[in-house]
């Protein structure tokens, strides 16, 4: 990680209100290329809301987003995707009735020209999908298999593979490992590591301190819509981090038997 670099994304003082609910009350975060930035915090702290403002799903109520130094205003997820921000949402953006390859390229369909007309290049889509999925360790029956027939873990993997494939500059992962088994989790963490080493910025949301510590370079903790600050890897112990994630409140007694980290 190279803090001397200019930040790729600067989120300045982001606020987001939903009617009478204040989900974000002024959060500032900087994302650098090639780092894995972990976003941690309690349930309802505003993590998902925060990354959704970053990926164009929500427009912030106030605050500024600088992308590569220039102020940016994403009106639509499409704008963010075009700017190079790929996101895997907590509620997976997969359509069960559609085939894997159609899902993979949804919103980013490859086109081939036939005279003046542009058509969906199914052959290319199928090929890319199969090879990308193979890279992630999933052997599909075929590119036209419906996503609905995949297991939860496989679906998660499709979503991540898609984001990696299109995620030119920033890859945002919202709790990608929450439903995954041990093996799949290890695989996702390995992928994060790999992606980061290619110079892509990764924003990684998790509730698992150990997962965060395994791949994270910097850790930002949100609490009740505000940031509790950002820490460098090595500057913070797991226990400190865990206390921060719990919102600074004491945890129930049982915890000891867990050896400190939940």
């Amino acid at each position, binding site marked *: 990680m190279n803090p001397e670099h200019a930040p790729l994304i600067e989120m300045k003082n982001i606020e987001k209100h939903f009617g009478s609910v204040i989900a974000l009350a002024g959060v500032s975060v900087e994302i650098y290329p090639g780092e894995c930035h972990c976003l941690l915090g309690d349930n309802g702290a505003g993590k998902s809301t925060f990354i959704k403002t970053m990926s164009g799903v929500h427009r912030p109520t106030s605050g500024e987003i600088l992308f590569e130094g220039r102020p940016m205003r994403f009106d639509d997820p499409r704008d963010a995707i075009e700017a190079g921000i790929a996101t895997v949402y907590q509620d997976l*953006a997969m359509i069960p009735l559609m085939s894997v390859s159609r899902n993979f390229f*949804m919103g980013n369909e490859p086109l081939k020209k036939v005279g003046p007309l542009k058509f969906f290049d199914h052959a290319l889509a199928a090929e890319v999908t199969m090879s990308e999925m193979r890279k992630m*360790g999933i*052997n599909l029956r075929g590119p036209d298999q419906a996503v609905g027939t995949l297991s939860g873990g496989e679906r998660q993997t499709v979503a991540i593979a898609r984001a990696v494939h299109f995620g030119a500059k920033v890859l945002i992962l919202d709790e990608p490992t929450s439903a995954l088994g041990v093996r799949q989790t290890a695989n996702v963490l390995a992928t994060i590591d790999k992606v980061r080493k290619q110079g892509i910025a990764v924003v990684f949301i998790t509730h698992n301190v150990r997962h965060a510590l395994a791949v994270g370079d910097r850790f930002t903790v949100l609490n009740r819509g505000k940031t509790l600050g950002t820490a460098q890897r090595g500057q913070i112990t797991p226990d400190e981090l865990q206390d921060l994630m719990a919102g600074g409140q004491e945890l129930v007694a049982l915890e000891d038997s867990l050896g400190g980290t939940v």
Partner: protein
Amino acid sequence: MSETPTVAVTDDERVKEMSAFRKALIRPELGGICGTIIVFTLFLLFAHDSGMFNSQGIMNWSVVSAQFMIIAVGACLLMIAGEFDLSVGSMIGFAGMMIAIFSVTLGWPVWMAILVTFALCIAIGALNGYIVVRTGLPSFIVTLALLFILRGFTIYLPQTIERKTIIGGVADAAQGDWLAALFGGKVLTGLFSWLGEAGLIETFERGTRAGQPVVDGIPMLIVWALGLVVFGHVLLTRTRFGNWIYASGGDAQAARYVGVPVNRVKILMFMFTAFCATVFATCQVMEFGSAGADRGLLKEFEAIIAVVIGGALLTGGYGSVIGAALGALIFGVVQQGLFFAGVESSLFRVFLGIILLFAVVLNTYIRRMITGER
């Protein structure tokens, strides 16, 4: 680290392999294809000597099926995009009435009447879509409201302007109009008169047209139907926009997340449905020369039924235009075929209901095989 080779996926042991033949067979259209085969077989067995399969008979159910197809294509794309439109029938009545009012009552040239009507109806379609998209209300309710509003105007306007609910004389006004011919004319007339002369199809026995073939060309209605089916099919399966249609209907939120302009897709599909309804209405008015307040009654259901028979999913995200076209064909053939077979006409609805039930059950079974849905 550049590969992750240790994670081998070998799910196979727990899933029986599906034969390649079976795999090639199961597709959304399968229900429609089976249905078509069954229906034709039945009628060939039981009504082969009723005139159903002479040139005139074929033309008869072809035209009826083509009519259904025109509105089914619109309804199909819209349904795949996750919405449906109950105002199609009223829109047909309304569009026809507008053309008649513009051209006959106001005396505009017919091409202008047609163009303005298209613009108006597509705008209403857009309004439908806009309300659905903005309020997030189910399209059932929004388009039900439009069903009443449009039908109300279709009765009120001619009633107020002309003091009747039927306006005739469009045929005279449309004489020689270039645009009218695109909807009301016939193509391949040369071929058919040659066929007639060659004795390959029957000719009229008497009257002013004695000696001419009984079928003297392919009505533009059929050309429109085929054109729309091809357009819809290519749009849906071969283009980026087609993928967006599936995505919008499959899961609008998911589609939005990956950057599909879902609202635009839905509104455009409502507009396309309105366009199809207007094509239907224009062909009808140009063919028959008059517009009535009763035109298009219940056509919305017929469109939806054709689409559902053709294998689309009422809840969106799944279906095919070819299937919908086959559904329209089945519907048309059954409707006219029952007449040919001489079945008591009030039983037609009973048959229709039973076929509908049978078709959806078959389609559901096929879809579950394809998608592995549980």
